[in-house]
């Protein structure tokens, strides 16, 4: 078997940017054309949020928990996007016949992944904002913003780490073919628990919460809750600065991991003939 030799691609920054924008386009523009997102991505998550709010109010939990739940409900949209819109995406692109065209084009696959991530992030942010807005108004959530810029920075850093993780997973899922479905399903519910979508991760105990910190949403959301809600710091797991440092490490690790795995996946797929849809 002749091993494909790694040759540096003659990319230009312009082509990289063009590719990122072009691949983000279907997600930012195209995804808004499917009006069903209002029902599936906003209304259904809002029902889960409502259920937790009613339980917390019934048992007399601190009012800060209501805000935690609303934020968690909004952030779940990002996790769903990572699982179904990022991790499984390269597999679907392959089955649709797009992956071969992406690889055959003189662009960078990292640019394709970045475009997918940015597009997904923008489209999902819109859904998350609607959940926050509706949840805050419906349940009268109280905010005590420490600093808008600190919040924005923490959110963006969380997104970089989270979508870096999604980019890394997409290469792994591609090599797993149809098993990716099962893996995505398997990753859904446990992450709901360990990310503390509906409660502070501090409640999990130190070691479990520390283990859960490998998921960018766990630490990112914990930091954001500390920056936004009046009693946030009381329920925080670690100091915000430590959590930001963890997010930086995760971002670097996941993005480098994504780059390495993508190159490895491309080599393996070219060797084994796995780049084209199953029927061809």
């Amino acid at each position, binding site marked *: *078997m*002749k*091993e*494909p*030799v790694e*040759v*540096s*691609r*003659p990319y*230009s920054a*312009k*082509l990289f940017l*063009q*590719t990122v*924008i*072009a*691949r983000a*386009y*279907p997600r930012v*523009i*195209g*995804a808004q*054309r*499917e009006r069903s997102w209002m029902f599936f991505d906003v209304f259904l998550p809002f029902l889960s949020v409502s259920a937790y709010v009613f339980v917390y109010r019934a048992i007399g939990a601190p009012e800060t928990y209501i805000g935690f739940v609303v934020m968690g409900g909004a952030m779940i949209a990002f996790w769903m996007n990572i699982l179904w819109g990022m991790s499984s995406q390269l597999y679907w692109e392959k089955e*649709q*016949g*797009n992956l*071969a*065209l*992406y*690889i*055959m*084009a*003189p*662009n960078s696959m990292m640019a*394709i992944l970045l475009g997918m991530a940015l597009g997904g992030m923008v489209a999902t942010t819109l859904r998350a904002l609607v959940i926050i807005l509706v949840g805050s108004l419906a349940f009268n959530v109280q905010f005590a913003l420490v600093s808008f810029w600190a919040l924005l920075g923490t959110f963006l850093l969380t997104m970089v780490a989270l979508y870096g993780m999604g980019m890394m997973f997409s290469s792994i899922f591609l090599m797993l073919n149809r098993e990716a479905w099962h893996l995505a399903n398997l990753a859904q519910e446990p992450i709901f628990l360990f990310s503390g979508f509906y409660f502070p991760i501090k409640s999990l105990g130190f070691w479990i919460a520390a283990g859960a910190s490998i998921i960018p949403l766990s630490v990112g959301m914990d930091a954001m809750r500390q920056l936004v809600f009046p009693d946030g710091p009381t329920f925080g797991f670690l100091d915000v600065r430590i959590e930001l440092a963890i997010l930086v490490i995760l971002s670097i690790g996941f993005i480098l991991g994504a780059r390495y795995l993508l190159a490895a996946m491309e080599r393996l797929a*070219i*060797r084994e*003939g796995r*780049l*084209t849809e199953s029927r*061809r």
Partner: protein
Amino acid sequence: MPDDHAIQTQALNRIYKIRGGKKNEPKELIALRDVHIEVPRGELFGLLGPNGAGKTTLIKILTTLLAPSSGRALVAGFDVTTQAYEIRPRINMVSGGESSGYGLLTVRENLWMFSQFYGIPSKEANRRIKELLRVVGLDDRMNTKSSELSTGLRQKMNIVRGFMTNPEVLFLDEPTLGLDVGAARDVRGFIQNWVKQQSGHTILLTTHHMIEADELCDRVAIINQGRILACDSPSSLKRMLQREAIFRLRVDSINSAEPNNFEKIGGVRHFTYRPGEGHATLEFILEEEDVLTEVVNQLASHNIHLQSLEKREPSLEDVFIQLVGRSMEEVEREGTS
């Protein structure tokens, strides 16, 4: 190798390891065996063979999507294994029945997206998209979501995607697959015109439609079971059969066992039987015309009424039969059974 060739392969082999052997052990499937082809720049080169012959495998190797097991392949003068990133800006590919792009985007948006992956400035991309859509008769659907297009219109969009980057070498893998007669004719017409207008640009077209290969290609390679069996211009290939006589006979319906007798007649090189409504068509490739007398006698002895008899010119189908011993239809049927 001289660089006046768009495509060159030397002793190219590809072996797939697939599961399904004894005790589910991996077994080897030879998709390409010792393939040598040379395609000069500016040629419309056809690869003709049944499904599973190795056409798509060869295209995948030439488009840098699959590594050869051994041998060498050059596209636009660059090695597919070591210089893939030099080849990619120079090529494009369109496959039949592909569903690339995104259904939520319009035709124009999908094409624009793919143009960006090749670094074409947006303004220029939009100009080319508009012009090519007009040429293929899809300009009135420019703002239609691609999910709303019929198979034929979708394939026209794919054709525009492939030609839009003005590639030095374009790979068309069964581009008319699944299209109705009208749409297939349009696509063939477009391909033919493009090659005429773009001097020095090369097309490698795979097909299992004889007429398509005959009508479009400057030269055709006939491939079966991963081997190139012959390679020449369609007319030269057909001249291989000049000594043979080819007859098509239409007869009353016959007993399905009877065709076996015709194979046994001395001088019958190949015989095909196609049952129809109230009749049957028999096609004979005979070593010489005189053998027809014996064929007609055999029909008479079996009380088979001859409705019509036609002598016809050899086609690429006949060339395939001559080389493989069976028709392409028979080979495909065996492959699926």
